[in-house]
C-alpha cells in the first residue's frame, strides 16, 4: 500500500504497538486499539463482503454495532470459528484471522454475483412465489437455496472458551457512557446511589470524546476536553462501577436486564487460556437510565451500497478517533448539518473534499461558511442520482431537486470520488426502551420516534431521547436526571455551549432519480438486500401492516435488525400508502440488541453441568458391574447389565428369566418417597387415592392410583401405614416432585383444615428390591433376626427391623408378580446392603436387573407404567382397573369426572393385551393399530404402548390402547408397518399367573 491513510496521532490507537493480522489470507498491519474495520480501512481495504441475495460487493459502512455489511467469519481454527462478527466491533490482536462470508470462491470474484444481473427476476417474495410449485419439490429446492444463502460457518467442535453468569443488583443502571451517560453517572454516584455504568465500547465518552473541533465548546473548553475531565472525575467515585466492552442485550420487565461483558475477545489467543471469555450479567436495577445515543441514517438513492460509501459520522470517527482517512477524494452527501462536522475534520487533516451535496436549498450553519472559505464546493438543493464503480466507488452523478423534492431537474453533473459520506439525520436508539415495553411517539419536526411512556422505573436521556444538540443534551440531562433520581444538588449549573451546527433538515425518505424506480437499486436494508422498489411492490401487492411488509421483503430481518434502514422503510410505506408515519408504529425490536453467542447464554451449564444428574447410593456398584444407564428424569438408572458380548436384548432376556426362575435384584432407590404424618393422614389418603384407606391396618401396604380432577390417571404407587398417623407413600420416579407439589396444593388451598404434614424423603433411603422364588431365602440370610414366614410376614405388609445396628424397613410388595421384598435403609448404607444381598444370593443365582427387565416383567403381569401405558387421557376404567375405584367413597380427586358424558363413552381408548399371530414377532412401541385397511383414510383405533419378547412365556407380548378395546377380546386387528402388516389378536392384559400364585410360591 503506497497510500498514506493513517495520521501520526490519534486518540485511541497506540502506534508503538504494531499488530499483524490476516484477512482473506493476506497479512496486514494495524495498531493496538484498531478495530478490524479501522485497520482494513487504513490499508485501503473497503470491499469486505458480498450481499445476501444479489452478492453485490459491499464495504464497511459504519463504525459501530449497527454495521450491516462488514460481517465476517472470525478465526480459521474450527473450534473457535465464529460467523457474523461485525468488523467494526472486533478489536484487532496479534494473529487475528478473519475472512469474508457469503461469497464463493472469493470476495473479489463471487459466482453468486450473477444474481445481481438476474435481479430483475428476483423481486421481493421471489422465493415464496417461485418455489411453491410443485409443493413436493420444496425439499429439493431448499438444499440449493440454503447452500447459496449461507451466512457464515458455525464451529464444528466444542467451544474451548469459558463463559459465566453473574447477578448484579444496583440502585441505578446507566446504559451508554456517552456525554449524557457520563453526566448521569456523576449525578447518581455523587448522591450516594450504587451506580453501574456500562458501555459496549472499549473506551468511555461515546462520540463526544472525539469532538475536538474549535466550533464545539462546553463552558469555554473544547467539548472533548471538557468530557475527559468529567470522566477523570467519575472514575474516582466510590459507588460507581464502570464496565466497558459490555453491551446490554435485553431489557425485560421489572428492570431486569441482560448484558454481555466481553473480557478476552481483544486479546491474542495465547493470552486467553483459563480466562473467562464472556460474562452474562443478569442485572436487577431499581432504576434504569438509557443513554444509548442515536444512529446516523443513510440516504436512499440508486446504488447507495457500493464499497467506499459510509455514514458521514463513521468517516469522522475513523479520522478523529482512529486517525484514518477512508479515502483521498471525498464527497459528502447530506440533508442536515452533521456532515459539515465531518467535513471540518477532513479539512483539519488536509484531506481532499471534492464536494458537498446537500438536499437543502439554504444552509445557515457556521461550518458551511467556514468550508466555503476553504473553497469547498457545496451543491445546495441537489441529490445524488447514481454512483459508479463496482468494487469501490469511483464517482457519482448529481441533479437538482425540484421544489417539492419529488423529482430531479436540470442537467446531470458527474463528480469523481473514492469515498462518499452520507448523512440522513439521526435515529434515536430506542431499541432497549421498546424491548422493555415502552411506547414511542413520532416527532414530526425531524421525523424521529422518541420515548413516550415508560413501563417501569426508567428514563431515557441524551440523543436516544431525541435530544440531538449539545445544548439540549446537557441541559435536559441535568433536569430530567435530577427529577428522576429525586436529587437536589449537582455540580452542574448552567452550560455555555458553542456549536457549529443547527437543527435544520430536509427529510426525503426515498430520493428521486432520473430513472424509473423499477430500474434503480436503492437499498433500504443492506444486509438483506431489500430495496425501495421491493417495499413499494409489497404495498402494490396489498400488504399494509408494517409487520407483514417486513416479513415479505425481509427488511430489518438481518443480524443487524435493520438498525440503519428501518425508519426509511416506514417512511416509504407511509408516503406510498398516503398515511402518517406515526400511525404505523414500528416493527418490534426483539432481544438481543446485538447477537450473543450460545456460550454466553449457556454459561457454565455445559457438559455434566447442563442439567442436574441424580445418582443412587448404589450407582458405583452398577458402574463397576458394567451397567448401561438410562435417564429417568434427572436420575441415572441402571438399564441392563450386559455380560461379555451380550447385546441389550440378550441381557434383558437373561435377566428376566433369572428373576422368575431364581432371584433378581433391582435398585429402586429412585422411586419417589413422601413421608405423611398427622391425625388426618388416613382421611387425606382417602381423598387423594381412588380406593379406600381408612381401614388399612398398621403394618400393611396398599397400591393406590391417583387421578387428576379431570379423572385421568396421574400417578401410582404403594403406600404403607407405618403407624396410626404415619404413612410412607411411594410415587413414580419421574412424578415424585409433581405429586408432592399437587398434594401440598390441596392441603394448603382446598383442605387447610386437615392436620397433615408432607416431607420428601426420596434421597434419604436406598431401596433394594429382591424378587423371585429364592428371594425369601436370600433376605432371610441378609436379615437373620427377622421372621420371613408367610404367616408372620405376608404379601403387602411391612416390618421395622435392623441390619446389624442400622434400622431399616422391609416391605413385601411386588412389581414383578414374583415373591418380592423391598429393603429401605438409610442411603449411605445402601451399597453395602446391596453387596450383602449379592453375596448371600450367589448360591441362588441372584441376578441384578435394570429398568428394561423391570418393564418386561411387569408387562407380563399387565401392570401399567404411568406415562408409558397412560397419557393424560386415560381413566382407571379405560385401564380396566375398575377394581381400584371405590364405589363407596363420597368423594376423591377426580371422582366426579369418572361419570361425565365423555368419560363413560364405550368407544374410549382402552388398555388391552395384544398377541401377534407369529409369536416371534415383536411389535414396535408407538405403532398404530387399525382394523380395516381397505378403506382410505384408514381409521386409527389406537397404538402400542408396551411391547416385549417374553422369555418366560416364549412369545411376544404387548399392551396397547384401542378404541372400545374392552369389548374386542379375541378380535383380530392389524398393525400396519412400513413394509408389512402384522396381524394381532386382542387379549386380556395379564399374560402370566393371573391368579397371583407366584407371590406365595414355595420351592
Amino acid at each position, binding site marked *: 500500500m503506497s497510500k498514506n491513510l493513517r495520521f501520526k496521532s490519534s486518540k485511541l490507537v497506540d502506534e508503538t504497538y504494531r499488530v499483524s493480522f490476516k484477512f482473506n489470507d493476506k497479512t496486514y498491519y494495524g495498531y493496538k486499539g484498531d478495530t478490524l474495520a479501522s485497520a482494513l480501512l487504513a490499508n485501503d481495504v473497503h470491499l469486505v463482503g458480498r450481499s445476501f441475495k444479489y452478492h453485490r460487493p459491499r464495504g464497511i459502512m459504519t463504525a459501530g454495532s449497527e454495521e450491516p455489511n462488514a460481517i465476517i467469519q472470525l478465526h480459521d481454527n474450527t473450534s473457535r470459528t465464529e460467523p457474523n462478527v461485525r468488523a467494526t466491533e472486533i478489536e484487532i490482536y496479534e494473529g487475528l484471522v478473519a475472512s469474508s462470508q457469503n461469497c464463493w470462491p472469493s470476495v473479489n470474484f463471487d459466482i453468486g454475483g450473477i444474481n445481481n444481473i438476474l435481479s430483475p427476476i428476483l423481486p421481493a417474495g421471489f422465493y415464496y412465489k417461485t418455489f411453491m410449485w410443485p409443493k413436493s419439490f420444496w425439499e429439493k429446492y431448499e438444499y440449493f437455496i440454503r447452500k447459496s444463502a449461507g451466512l457464515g460457518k458455525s464451529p464444528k467442535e466444542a467451544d474451548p472458551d469459558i463463559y459465566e453468569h453473574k447477578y448484579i443488583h444496583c440502585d441505578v443502571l446507566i446504559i451508554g457512557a456517552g456525554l449524557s451517560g457520563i453526566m448521569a453517572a456523576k449525578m447518581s454516584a455523587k448522591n450516594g446511589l450504587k451506580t453501574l455504568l456500562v458501555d459496549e465500547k472499549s473506551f468511555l465518552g461515546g462520540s463526544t470524546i472525539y469532538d475536538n473541533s474549535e466550533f464545539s465548546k462546553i463552558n469555554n473548553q473544547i467539548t472533548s476536553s471538557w468530557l475527559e475531565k468529567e470522566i477523570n472525575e467519575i472514575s474516582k467515585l466510590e459507588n460507581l462501577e464502570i464496565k466497558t466492552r459490555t453491551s446490554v442485550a435485553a431489557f*425485560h*420487565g421489572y428492570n431486569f436486564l441482560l448484558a454481555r461483558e466481553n473480557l478476552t475477545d481483544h486479546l491474542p489467543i495465547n493470552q486467553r487460556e483459563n480466562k473467562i471469555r464472556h460474562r452474562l450479567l443478569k442485572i436487577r436495577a431499581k432504576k434504569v437510565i438509557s443513554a444509548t445515543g442515536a444512529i446516523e441514517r443513510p440516504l436512499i438513492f440508486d446504488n447507495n451500497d457500493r464499497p467506499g460509501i459510509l455514514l458521514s459520522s463513521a468517516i469522522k470517527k475513523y479520522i478523529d478517533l482512529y486517525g484514518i482517512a477512508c479515502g483521498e477524494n471525498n464527497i459528502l452527501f447530506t440533508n442536515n448539518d452533521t456532515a459539515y462536522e465531518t467535513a471540518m475534520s477532513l479539512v483539519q487533516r488536509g484531506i481532499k473534499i471534492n464536494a458537498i451535496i446537500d438536499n437543502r436549498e439554504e444552509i445557515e450553519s457556521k461550518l458551511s461558511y467556514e468550508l466555503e472559505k476553504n473553497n469547498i464546493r457545496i451543491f445546495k438543493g441537489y441529490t445524488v442520482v447514481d454512483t459508479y464503480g463496482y468494487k469501490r466507488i469511483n464517482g457519482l452523478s448529481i441533479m437538482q431537486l425540484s421544489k417539492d423534492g419529488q423529482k430531479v431537474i436540470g442537467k446531470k453533473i458527474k463528480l469523481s470520488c473514492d469515498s462518499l459520506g452520507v448523512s440522513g439525520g439521526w435515529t434515536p436508539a430506542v431499541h432497549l426502551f421498546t424491548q422493555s415495553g415502552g411506547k414511542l411517539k413520532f416527532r414530526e419536526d425531524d421525523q424521529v420516534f422518541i420515548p413516550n411512556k415508560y*413501563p417501569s422505573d426508567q428514563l431515557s436521556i441524551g440523543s436516544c431521547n431525541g435530544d440531538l444538540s449539545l445544548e439540549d443534551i446537557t441541559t435536559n440531562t441535568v433536569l430530567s436526571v435530577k427529577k428522576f433520581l429525586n436529587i437536589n444538588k449537582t455540580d452542574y449549573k448552567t452550560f455555555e455551549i458553542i456549536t457549529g451546527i443547527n437543527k435544520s433538515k430536509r427529510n426525503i425518505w426515498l430520493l428521486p432519480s432520473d430513472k424509473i424506480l423499477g430500474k434503480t437499486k436503492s437499498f433500504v436494508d443492506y444486509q438483506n438486500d431489500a430495496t425501495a422498489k421491493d417495499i413499494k411492490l409489497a404495498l402494490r401487492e396489498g400488504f399494509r401492516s408494517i409487520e407483514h411488509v417486513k416479513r415479505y421483503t425481509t427488511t430489518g430481518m438481518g443480524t443487524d435488525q435493520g438498525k440503519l434502514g428501518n425508519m426509511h422503510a416506514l417512511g416509504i410505506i407511509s408516503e406510498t400508502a398516503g398515511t402518517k408515519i406515526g400511525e404505523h408504529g414500528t416493527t418490534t425490536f426483539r432481544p438481543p440488541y446485538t447477537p450473543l453467542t450460545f456460550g454466553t447464554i449457556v454459561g457454565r451449564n455445559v457438559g455434566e453441568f447442563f442439567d442436574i444428574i441424580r445418582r443412587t447410593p448404589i450407582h458405583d456398584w452398577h458402574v463397576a458391574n458394567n451397567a448401561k444407564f438410562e435417564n429417568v428424569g434427572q436420575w441415572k438408572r441402571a438399564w441392563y447389565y450386559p455380560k461379555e458380548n451380550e447385546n441389550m436384548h440378550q441381557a434383558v432376556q437373561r435377566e428376566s428369566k433369572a428373576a422368575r426362575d431364581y432371584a433378581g435384584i433391582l435398585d429402586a432407590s429412585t422411586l419417589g418417597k413422601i413421608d405423611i404424618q398427622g391425625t388426618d393422614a388416613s382421611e387425606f389418603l382417602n381423598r387423594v387415592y381412588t380406593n379406600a384407606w381408612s381401614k388399612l391396618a398398621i403394618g400393611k401396604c396398599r397400591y393406590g392410583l391417583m387421578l387428576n380432577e*379431570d379423572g385421568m390417571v396421574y400417578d401410582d404407587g404403594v403406600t404403607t401405614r407405618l403407624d396410626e398417623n404415619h404413612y410412607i407413600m411411594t410415587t413414580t420416579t419421574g412424578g415424585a416432585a409433581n405429586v408432592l*407439589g399437587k398434594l*401440598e396444593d390441596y392441603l394448603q388451598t382446598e383442605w*387447610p383444615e386437615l392436620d397433615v404434614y408432607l416431607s420428601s424423603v426420596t434421597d434419604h433411603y436406598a431401596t433394594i428390591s429382591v424378587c423371585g422364588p429364592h428371594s425369601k431365602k436370600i433376605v432371610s440370610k441378609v436379615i437373620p433376626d427377622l421372621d420371613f414366614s408367610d404367616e408372620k410376614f405376608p404379601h403387602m405388609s411391612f416390618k421395622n427391623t435392623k441390619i446389624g445396628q442400622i434400622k431399616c424397613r422391609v416391605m413385601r410388595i411386588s412389581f414383578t408378580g414374583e415373591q418380592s421384598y423391598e429393603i429401605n435403609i438409610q442411603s449411605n448404607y445402601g451399597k453395602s446392603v446391596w453387596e450383602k444381598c449379592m453375596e448371600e444370593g450367589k448360591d441362588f443365582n441372584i441376578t441384578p436387573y435394570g429398568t428394561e427387565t423391570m418393564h418386561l416383567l411387569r408387562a407380563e403381569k399387565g401392570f401399567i407404567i404411568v406415562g408409558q401405558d397412560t397419557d393424560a387421557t386415560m381413566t382407571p376404567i379405560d385401564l380396566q382397573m375398575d377394581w381400584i375405584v371405590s364405589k363407596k367413597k363420597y*368423594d376423591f380427586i377426580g*371422582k366426579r369426572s369418572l361419570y361425565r358424558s365423555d368419560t363413560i363413552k364405550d368407544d374410549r381408548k382402552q388398555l388391552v393385551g395384544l398377541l401377534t399371530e407369529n409369536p416371534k414377532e415383536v411389535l414396535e412401541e408407538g405403532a398404530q393399530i387399525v382394523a380395516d385397511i381397505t378403506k382410505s383414510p384408514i381409521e386409527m383405533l389406537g397404538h402400542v404402548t408396551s411391547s416385549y419378547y417374553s422369555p418366560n412365556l416364549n412369545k411376544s407380548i404387548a399392551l396397547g390402547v384401542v378404541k372400545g378395546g374392552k369389548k374386542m377380546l379375541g378380535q383380530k386387528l392389524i398393525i400396519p408397518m412400513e413394509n408389512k402388516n402384522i396381524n394381532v389378536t386382542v387379549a386380556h392384559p395379564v399374560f402370566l399367573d393371573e391368579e397371583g400364585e407366584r407371590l406365595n410360591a414355595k420351592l
Partner: protein
Amino acid sequence: MFLINCPFCGEREQSEFKAGGEAHIERPKQPTELSDDEWAEFLFMRKNIKGVQFERWNHAHGCRKWFNIARDTSNDQIKTVYKMGEKPPVE
C-alpha cells in the same frame, strides 16, 4: 422476569415460583350433586382477561407456600400479594 413479593419470604425472582392459574376457584364441596355442566364449569372454565387478574402462585423453590397475587396482564404489574384464604382486594 417478575419480582414477586412472597408473603412469607419477601421479594424473590420469578424463577423461584410456579404459576397455578386463576385464583378463587373453590373445589365444590359436593361434586356428586353437580350436573356435568356445573362440574365442567369448575373443571375447565378459566378467565383470560386484559387487566387485573387474580392468580395463584407457589413459591416452589422457596417456602413451598401457595398464595395469591393480583396482576395486570397488560403490563405485568403486580398490584397486591395476599395469602390463601384472604379475600381478593377490591380495586
